[in-house]
């Protein structure tokens, strides 16, 4: 899967507008993976996501339906409401959604479900759901076990283009947007209330050790379309009890969640760029087409580092690029669910003349646009001192305290300070958080460089609130890509 998703379409004509609406409502593979009960369910569904396994297959702007040939004597009737997110299947599985519903979604995502009018049984199911929803004061739209939290919570900045419902004209689009803003605001208010409760009852409260405490909040945030915040909450749950110092780490994260919630509620009062940054941090989804429609950042982009992380049920790859002319950093994200491939179209250590399109708010995150030439090998990065790197990182974090990663290319040497491995130069030192293989490679590279009379090794590091990681060593004759790599048993071979 590449970081680039939907191309910019022509929304000025009626056909273009229909395509626009279709793109707006169609899910992404990440969203399908997000609603699956486990990665194994997605793998099981993959084998059923073949048109020849299905009959009476069809879909419209509300639902998908079909009959899947399974292990039983009769085919299973499967229906998915892809707008209100619910499913029904005649298979005996107790998993919700079952692999047949997931397979139907996968087929649809890949364009394998033809448009058609719904059969009567589907129409009546949708009608029943709508009547039930209208009658419920709480707005909950499904019976127990029928509908999990809606998708959209994958990755810290999910690559999703789905909107709330399939709008049919501009007024509907505006109304849909307003409803979505209102829903997110409700989510932010609920988040802040929850945070205040934590302050009241304290971090020693046994409730915090229960994953359900965090998961319920995350589900509430997903419901409010604040997927990035939901992911932060889930990651935060993993910090509880994970280290002797976990109370301080969790408290700091709770504080930052409060900052985002507070800023998000004051979004209209914030300056434009900060407002965009806050909206992105909250999980406000921006369509790829809108990003790609913006002014490109054209440069010779040096691919400085790569870092893969597993987030919930998805593998996330970050590629750090630095503009050789502008000196600005950018980040390309790609995502892979179980047995999918991460983007490997750019190689660390190369330079590519290309357009990047940044997300709103002067974001680090960008989408790759037009390439003007094939990537070239590049071995002399512009490296800064340790002090300069700290200044650069500090400025970025001061502007957006919720940042979780920031890169820098420094010229430094490995050393030991207070029994900890650090990288150092004459301006200061930074402790490293690396494994033995990476540290050994750094030491060996340093020894090799030192033998040729040079004392500093060019390296790209990644700052995180939990420590500085070494991603790349730039040697005079080659580049060593040492960043954390996705588990090969999880991602497929590209």
């Amino acid at each position, binding site marked *: 899967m590449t970081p680039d998703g939907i191309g910019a379409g022509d929304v000025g004509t009626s056909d273009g507008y229909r395509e626009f609406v279709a793109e707006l409502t169609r899910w992404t593979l990440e969203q399908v993976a997000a609603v699956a009960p486990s990665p194994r369910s997605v793998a099981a569904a993959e084998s059923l996501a073949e048109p020849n396994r299905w009959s009476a297959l069809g879909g419209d702007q509300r639902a998908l339906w079909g009959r899947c040939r399974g292990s039983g004597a009769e085919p299973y009737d499967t229906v998915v409401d892809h707008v209100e997110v619910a499913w029904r299947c005649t298979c005996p599985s107790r998993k919700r959604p079952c692999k047949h519903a997931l397979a139907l979604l996968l087929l649809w995502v890949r364009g394998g479900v033809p448009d058609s009018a719904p059969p009567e049984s589907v129409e009546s199911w949708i009608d029943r759901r709508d009547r039930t929803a209208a009658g419920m004061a709480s707005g909950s739209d499904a019976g127990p076990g029928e509908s999990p939290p809606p998708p959209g919570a994958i990755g810290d900045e999910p690559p999703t283009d789905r909107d709330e419902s399939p709008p049919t004209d501009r007024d509907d689009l505006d109304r849909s947007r307003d409803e979505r803003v209102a829903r997110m605001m409700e989510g932010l208010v609920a988040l802040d209330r929850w945070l205040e409760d934590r302050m009241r009852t304290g*971090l020693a409260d046994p409730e915090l050790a229960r994953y359900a405490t965090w998961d319920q909040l995350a589900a509430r945030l997903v419901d409010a379309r604040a997927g990035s915040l939901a992911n932060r909450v889930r990651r935060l749950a993993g910090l509880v009890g994970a280290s002797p110092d976990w*109370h301080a780490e969790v408290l700091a994260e709770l504080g930052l969640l409060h900052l985002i919630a507070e800023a998000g509620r004051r979004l209209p009062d914030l300056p434009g760029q900060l407002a965009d940054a806050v909206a992105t941090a909250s999980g406000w989804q921006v369509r790829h087409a809108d990003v790609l429609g913006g002014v490109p950042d054209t440069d010779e982009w040096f691919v400085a580092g790569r870092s893969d992380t597993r987030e919930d049920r998805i593998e996330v790859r970050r590629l750090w690029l630095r503009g050789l002319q502008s000196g600005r950093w950018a980040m390309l994200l790609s995502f892979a669910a179980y047995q999918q491939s991460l983007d490997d179209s750019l190689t660390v250590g190369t330079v590519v003349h290309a357009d990047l399109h940044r997300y709103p708010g002067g974001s680090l995150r960008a989408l790759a646009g037009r390439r003007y030439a094939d990537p070239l090998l590049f071995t002399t990065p512009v490296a800064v001192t340790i002090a300069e790197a700290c200044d650069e990182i500090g400025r970025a974090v*001061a502007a957006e305290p919720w940042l979780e990663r920031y890169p820098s290319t420094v010229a430094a040497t490995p050393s030991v300070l207070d029994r900890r491995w650090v990288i150092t130069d004459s301006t200061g030192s930074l402790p490293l958080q690396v494994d033995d293989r990476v540290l050994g490679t750094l030491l060996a590279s340093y020894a090799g460089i030192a033998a040729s009379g040079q004392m500093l090794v060019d390296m790209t590091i990644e700052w995180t609130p939990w420590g500085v990681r070494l991603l790349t060593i730039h040697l005079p004759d080659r580049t060593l890509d040492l960043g954390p790599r996705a588990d090969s048993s999880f991602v497929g071979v590209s």
Partner: protein
Amino acid sequence: MSSDLEIYWRELVTAALLGTDRRQPPVASPGPVADLIDDAVRPDHASRMLAAVGSVAAARRAAFVAGPPAGQLQVPEPDERPSCSAAAVATWRTIVAEWPVLEDEWVLTVIQRGMRVPPDALVEQLQRHRRDATRRARVAIAGGPLAGWLTDHLPALGPTTRATASAEDVANLPELPVSPELTYLLTADAHTFVRRLAHGFDNGEFRAPHRAVLVNLFARCRPEVLANAASSFGSANVGLALALADLAGLRHRMLSELGVAI
């Protein structure tokens, strides 16, 4: 980061552990953080505490400063031998993943050709052979002074066994069993080698149980036969022959990259 901020943060952590139902939030010393917290009108302890935690967490995170410079590490004795090529290292990785029977020959050839192993591969080899005294000794020779220097600094790369290897074992390829009727092929010319094996594949003499001895034969035969064997069996319709052609091709490439005249 100012020590005042750090002290205040520790007080906040302590208060947060107990919760504001049992302990009032600490008051910040006068300064920018205190001003920031006071700016927000807070009706109760919990929300005041939350405002303080958010402000201090942001300030601490943004105050990312370097520690004092550290002294330089003493570097190992220089190693004048040329490093083997990146292509050779890539082939070593393929060998480890697909045909580990060739790894001993790769390392010994590096040593015999007067080359050294580049840093990233050396670290992987030290990690890989922590338990095998003979292979570890070869890696130590191929790595030169750098290998010892690395294990001094990183005990995690050191050996896990106290066993020692004999000089003879270290210097020579281990013998691999080959069935007696095929032993003559170890020193045969390319024509004889290919003809005999082709005959065996054609008449069904070589099947899956013969795989191990045939792999051994291909790993120890004369390098001169490899190119012919790779091309002759590369288009065979027998799976075992195809696998052996792959092995022959990889060994041929390995030796060529390391500068062995074939």
